[in-house]
């Protein structure tokens, strides 16, 4: 039998007016296992805590029950006091006789009976308690950031500035992501590259940031604080160390092809750098287009290169890195136009998407910022913008709002009207969602000052007739069917996660939703953490969002990483699951129920008589387990238990309450 102490708090009159605290402590004195019981006016006060400490030491108590306010208030206070007196803090349990007893009942007799019963139940729980010790988990203070767009760069810079090493992995040859392609940004109309270039340059030269562009994460193992990742570095066929970025190769390369960076709006060479401000400013050869790779002849780049850095024989290689935390910032793409069969399925050259419009409106784009339509280079006299092209559309399996389109469409229409004053810009919208600082004012400016015509309704069809694009729409406010002949149609196609997000999610063991956006740990309270401890989320990888929101979230993710790295060890809550290997049958019913993937099979050796047998059992990664206890219920053999809320503790508590 343990020596247990019981302390009943009056909380001034808060408890004592409804619960007869004296009677309670008196009755507990005679309860089996209770060595000491008393009541006190304010246990949370300094003298109260001193009393507890002294009593523990004087009586060599092995466990205590504090009957007071909610454990949410002072559990940590009393556990700390007990620890100071040499008692394991997990030997301390709180009985809630204030919030859940004295304050909610008015009959003193009933309340006292209930309080006594609750305290007895807690005594039973303490009897079954164990010493628990927080585990120290080692920590590699280095972060892997996946994605070199504005969110990934923000995370990288924040963490690097805090003094920790960062590996920034980007699948494209250069960083900058989607933002590098934008013309101007809402709601201020400042040019995207003007605000982005200083950032990319800083990332490029920061001593704490290792940049791995043209690379992808292909494998990940370990757990928070201690991940090992494998990064595939795809060949560039140019020795970037030697290269001086003179770009003679690009100038002289005879092979011209469509540029992905320009989204088909412009051309590039088979050896090229995507855009003039690219970081790193180093060219890459596209294996599929290069004449030498196809025919074995040409080598023009080799001929003109002054530093002899072309390496046709370069191979991909895999590098392994040990890191402590991962930030996923894999960004977004746009729903391909081919999926929108009612808007031409991508077969009309002059039906373009938002990003293509960005390129033709960008001063550094293929038209040098003059808005010309792709088919013949004419300046369009009439543009129709179609919002919600694929978004908010169950039929296209994208029932969600893409969030950024209302704003960028207003911006597009404005940019156009600023260039072509007598042109007409028509926007088809369903709702204008302009929640954000200065956003609504921005949209109103487009309507009032720039005379952009906003029609409330969706477009049924776009087709070509007599060299014009015909847009069949409706204005539901006037109930009129609308037929507009346009020179250019811009579709605000749905924001979708990066094509490789799902695979990346599987690699990192982080869940994605039905559309491929990464799931956050809690939609309100843990928006930048994933369900996998140590993996954080930033930017459009998690959901569609605009630049200011992305930057805020990325900064938040960086703060989470920095907080994690601010300690020398990670400490894990000891109130986690544990397996009794003796009775575990290794059925692993617990494995799929664990939301944190903390359970894995393990083969152990068991000595039976003179032979040693190998047997599979479940094992808990205490770093990953968060202590929900779902596995303990799923366990058929009863081998799985939860420290701090063990089956025995709950059952004893229960029994005492049922009497």
């Amino acid at each position, binding site marked *: 039998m343990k020596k247990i102490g019981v302390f009943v708090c009056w909380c001034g009159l808060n408890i004592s007016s409804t619960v007869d605290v004296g009677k309670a402590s008196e009755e507990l004195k005679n309860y089996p296992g209770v060595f000491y019981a008393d009541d006190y006016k304010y246990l949370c006060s300094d003298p109260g805590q001193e009393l507890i400490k002294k009593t523990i030491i004087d009586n060599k108590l092995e466990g205590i029950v504090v009957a007071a306010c*909610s*454990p*949410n208030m002072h559990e940590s206070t009393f556990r700390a006091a007990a620890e100071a007196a040499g008692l394991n803090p997990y030997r301390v349990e709180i009985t*809630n006789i*204030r*919030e*859940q*007893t004295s*304050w*909610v*009942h*008015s*009959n003193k007799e*009933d*309340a006292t*009976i*209930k309080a006594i*019963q*609750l305290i007895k*139940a807690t005594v039973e729980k303490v009897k079954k308690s164990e010493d628990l010790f927080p585990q120290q988990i080692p920590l590699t203070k280095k972060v892997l950031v996946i994605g070199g767009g504005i969110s990934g760069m923000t995370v990288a810079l924040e963490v690097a500035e805090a003094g920790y090493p960062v590996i920034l992995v980007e699948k494209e040859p250069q960083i900058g992501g989607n933002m590098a392609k934008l013309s101007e940004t809402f709601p201020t109309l400042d040019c995207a590259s003007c605000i982005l270039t200083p950032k990319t340059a800083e990332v490029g030269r920061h001593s704490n940031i290792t940049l791995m562009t043209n690379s992808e994460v292909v494998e990940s193992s370990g757990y928070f604080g201690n991940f090992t990742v494998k990064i595939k570095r795809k060949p560039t066929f140019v020795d970037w160390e030697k290269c001086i970025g003179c770009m003679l190769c690009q100038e002289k390369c005879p092979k011209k092809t469509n540029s992905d960076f320009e989204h088909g709006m412009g051309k590039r060479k088979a050896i090229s750098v995507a855009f003039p401000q690219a970081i790193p400013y180093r060219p890459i050869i596209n294996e599929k287009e290069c004449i030498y790779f196809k025919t074995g002849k040409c080598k023009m780049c080799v001929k003109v290169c002054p530093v002899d850095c072309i390496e046709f024989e370069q191979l991909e290689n895999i590098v392994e890195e040990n890191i402590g935390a991962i930030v996923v910032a894999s960004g977004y793409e746009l729903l391909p136009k081919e999926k929108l069969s009612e808007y031409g399925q991508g077969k009309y050259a002059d039906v373009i998407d938002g990003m293509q419009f960005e390129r033709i409106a960008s001063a550094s784009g293929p038209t040098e910022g003059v808005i010309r339509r792709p088919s013949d280079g004419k300046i369009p006299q009439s543009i129709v913008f179609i919002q919600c092209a694929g978004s908010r559309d169950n039929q296209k399996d994208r029932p969600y709002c893409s969030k950024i389109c209302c704003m960028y469409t207003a911006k597009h229409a404005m940019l156009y009207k600023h260039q072509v004053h007598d042109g007409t810009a028509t926007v088809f919208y369903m709702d204008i969602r302009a929640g954000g600082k200065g956003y609504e004012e921005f949209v109103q400016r487009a309507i009032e000052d720039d005379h952009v015509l906003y029609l409330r309704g969706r477009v049924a069809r776009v087709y070509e007739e007599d060299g014009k694009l015909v847009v069949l729409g409706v204005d539901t406010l006037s109930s009129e069917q609308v037929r507009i002949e346009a020179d250019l149609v811009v579709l605000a196609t749905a924001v979708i996660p990066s094509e490789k997000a799902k695979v990346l999610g599987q690699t990192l063991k982080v869940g994605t939703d039905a559309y491929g956006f990464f799931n956050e*740990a*809690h*939609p309100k309270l843990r928006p930048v953490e994933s*369900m996998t401890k140590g993996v954080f989320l930033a930017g459009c990888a998690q959901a569609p969002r605009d630049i200011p929101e992305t930057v805020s979230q990325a900064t938040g993710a960086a703060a989470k990483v920095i907080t994690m790295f601010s300690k020398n060890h990670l400490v894990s809550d000891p*109130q986690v699951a544990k397996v009794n290997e003796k009775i575990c049958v290794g059925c692993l019913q617990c494995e799929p*129920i664990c*939301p944190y993937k903390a359970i894995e099979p393990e083969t152990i050796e068991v000595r039976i008589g003179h032979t040693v047998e190998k047997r599979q059992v479940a094992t808990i990664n205490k770093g990953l387990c*968060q*202590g*929900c*206890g*779902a596995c*303990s*219920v*799923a366990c058929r053999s009863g081998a799985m238990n*939860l420290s701090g*809320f063990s*089956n025995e503790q*709950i*059952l004893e*508590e*229960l*029994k005492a*309450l*049922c*009497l």
Partner: protein
Amino acid sequence: MSVKFKPNIICFACNWCSYTGADMAGTSRMKYPATIKIIRVPCSGRVNPTFIMKAYQKGADGVLIAGCHPGDCHYNSGNYFAKRRFLLATRFMNYIGIDAKRLRMEWISAAEGVKFARVMAEFSETISELGPNWRAREEV
């Protein structure tokens, strides 16, 4: 003199939502019958159906499981498991002849002190009407 039957009810409350909701009821000085006794669990998904059955065996007249609203579970999916187990448990109770009304499950958030008090009062009333649980109680 007729003494009104005072039931004994066990409430399993998840630490993150419902237990805090119960605290909220207290802070707002809502009143509910003293027949309810709360056991704190980390998550409604921690509630093993054997706990429920054990409660009836040991003489509880009613059991209430309170967890986070769907989609709000601190551990993401625990409340869904709890709900499924609850449904199974009610079927089992029907099977062995315990009135399934003696088991109830509720989503109560940390902000729903009012709801907590209301549910407790309602459930206490239900159980009072059902009378003592003689069926499943072990002979003492």
